[in-house]
């Protein structure tokens, strides 16, 4: 009874929980816009790309792309991007000409699936595909239950968002938890299988079948970072894929970042201009 009441309340109020939910709901509209170019990323993309400027620059560069659908879901990485593209586009026969995936650091590695990832996957995958997803991801018993709970109950699906909203009321919570997490079983999430690129392989396989041009773009961060050679070799192994990198770019200084990760509006403008040039010219830096 209590869960039903909560579900009803969340049904009407979930949009107010975060902009991320509003954006998630808008993906259906993006699929209907017949975009020939789709850009997928996370908050680095949300903060890093000035959409109006991008379209303007693409037109200036005389490309065929008059508009682009941009999908930026917070805290996501390759596994979520794979399911977003697969569920919203590929399986609905909505095939763009160009797909761009914006990533940073180790976001092309398949992470160990914890509740956060499962709840996000549950919100992208339709009910009829849940069983197949369990099989494909070889989920264990607990993970399967988590996936189904997140699919059928909003309170489970939005758990992270609600708890973050409440805990953010604690002074310095975000910065404190970020530091504490470093010492709580550090690197566990990726260490178990440090070079697991299953979902990178799968998304490449998908674009090859559909004949989509796929560009991977390494986003700028305040500190430069290197990209695993394995990633470069996987991407170079496909004729459909290209990789461009702002990971060691000297143009971006601390002045261009609003925090330890995200670009500020000036940084976004600078990045969008370079980004538009690079995707127009299809230049591979590697």
């Amino acid at each position: 009874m209590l869960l039903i009441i909560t579900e009803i309340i969340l049904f009407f109020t979930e949009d107010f929980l975060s902009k991320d939910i509003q954006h998630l709901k808008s993906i259906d509209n993006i699929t209907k816009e017949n975009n020939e170019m789709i850009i997928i990323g996370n908050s680095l993309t949300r903060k890093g790309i000035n959409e109006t400027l991008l379209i303007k620059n693409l037109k200036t560069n005389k490309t065929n792309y008059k508009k682009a659908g941009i999908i930026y879901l917070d805290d996501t990485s390759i596994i979520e991007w794979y399911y977003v593209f697969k569920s919203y586009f590929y399986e609905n026969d909505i095939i763009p000409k160009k797909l761009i995936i914006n990533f940073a650091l180790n976001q092309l590695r398949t992470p160990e699936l914890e509740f956060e990832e499962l709840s996000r996957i549950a919100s992208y995958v339709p009910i009829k595909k849940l069983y197949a997803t369990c099989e494909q991801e070889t989920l264990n018993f607990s993970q399967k239950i988590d996936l189904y709970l997140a699919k059928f109950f909003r309170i489970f699906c939005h758990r992270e968002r609600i708890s973050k909203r409440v805990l953010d009321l604690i002074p310095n919570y975000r910065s404190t938890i970020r530091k504490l997490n470093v010492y709580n079983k550090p690197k566990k999430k990726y260490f178990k299988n440090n070079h697991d690129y299953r979902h990178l392989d799968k998304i490449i396989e998908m674009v090859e079948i559909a004949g989509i041009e796929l560009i991977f773009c390494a986003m700028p961060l305040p500190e430069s970072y290197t990209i695993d050679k394995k990633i470069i070799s996987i991407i170079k192994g496909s004729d459909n894929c290209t990789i461009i990198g702002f990971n060691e770019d000297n143009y971006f200084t601390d002045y261009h970042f609003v925090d330890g990760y995200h670009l500020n509006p000036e940084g976004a403008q600078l990045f969008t201009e370079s980004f538009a040039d690079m995707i127009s010219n299809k230049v591979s830096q590697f």
Partner: protein
Amino acid sequence: MLFNSYLFWSFFFCVFTLYWLVPKKFQNTVLLISSYAFYSFWDWRFLGLIIISTLTDFILAKKITVSPKNKNTYLYMSLTVNLGVLALFKYFGFFIEQINHLLYLIGINSFSNILHFVLPIGISFYTFQTISYTVDVYRGITKPINNILNFALYVSFFPQLVAGPIERSYKLLPQLTKVKNFKNINFTEGFYFILYGLFMKIVLADNMAIVSNGIYNQNIESLMGVDIIVGTYAFAFQIYGDFSGYSLIAIGVSKLFGIDLMRNFKVPYISTNPSEFWRRWHISLSSWLKDYLYIPLGGNKAGIKITYKNLLITMLLGGLWHGANWTFIFWGLFHGLILIAYKAYDYKFKVKLLVRRNPLYQILQTFFFFHLICISWIFFRSETIIDAYKILIQILYNFSFSSDTLGMMGMILFFVAPIFVYEYWDERKNHSSFNERSLSSVMLFSNYCIFMIILFQAPTFQEFIYFQF
């Protein structure tokens, strides 16, 4: 198969259904098979140890009553087998290590330890439970049981097998032999304790673990003193939530089988002195130590010096019970010393009852004593004695804040304050039975637990701390 896993609850659902569906005479068989299956899920190889312990005490307790002349011999045989197995698996490696260290110090070549034992889960708990049965039979408190199946269940009852509460034969055995009726089961009470326990573990303990591990896993020299104190507060609530959570789930699950287990914790951090603390913290162990160690040693009946000696021995062994490490021995020693210090203070100054009942005096006492407990947790949490020493030095000589202090304190307040207020309020009500609680308070608290479990469970599950003991 952790209590906070879906796997356990699926297992429990199957056992529960089967238990109430089979004819009553087979109920204990279902529980025994389930208990062995539950233990095998951890490590089937150690099931043999439980069976050895069960057979030994079942046979020897019978012999104690059959031939009273030799009852001392049979009791010693039981103690030798039980404590021998415990010593072999839990302490052998540690003692060899210490002997080697001593030999090295006096310049003699150490001998290599060729035996490396894996610690069987729950060994300390079920060993103490079986010992209590034999001793109770020896003392004439309990009559030896004739049905080996019921006794095997007494030793291995799965809700309390791996981390207690350590039950007494005269309380648990009669319940196991009694026929249970489904209509008499208080489901509200069972689910209340289960939700309460899950909250304590998944929400309180696991979130506090983020803070305490975040501090204690860092390089000690880089830490600020106040951050260590806050990290230690977090550990104090982590271990409380962790262990009391397990006990509460065990109590709740047992209730659904028609079996009552003892309360293991009663708001321990409101204690004003160590004696009170041990009446509130891990009650099943502290009362075990009192009944089977402290009192046989002479208790407090043989003068003040003997009392102090007995307290120290009891607490040292209580510390060692937790694990083969000097940190636990120091933890026990520290508790022994504060017990003695408080007794000596009371003895010398005879603090008047009127003063004791003064609320301000009680708050100050509670505050002071909580910090003494926190010092003991530093020994308990540290990997080595040297680490504990460094932490204490760091607190004393680098007593400053960091930018994270406020965030950590906020987390502790958010997770601890509501449950502390509820527990204190519930304690003040002094209910003699669950039914005395108003339904509205039970429902309100249960709903709070459900929401917190769903929304604020920690991102990663931590193993129960007491499983290692």
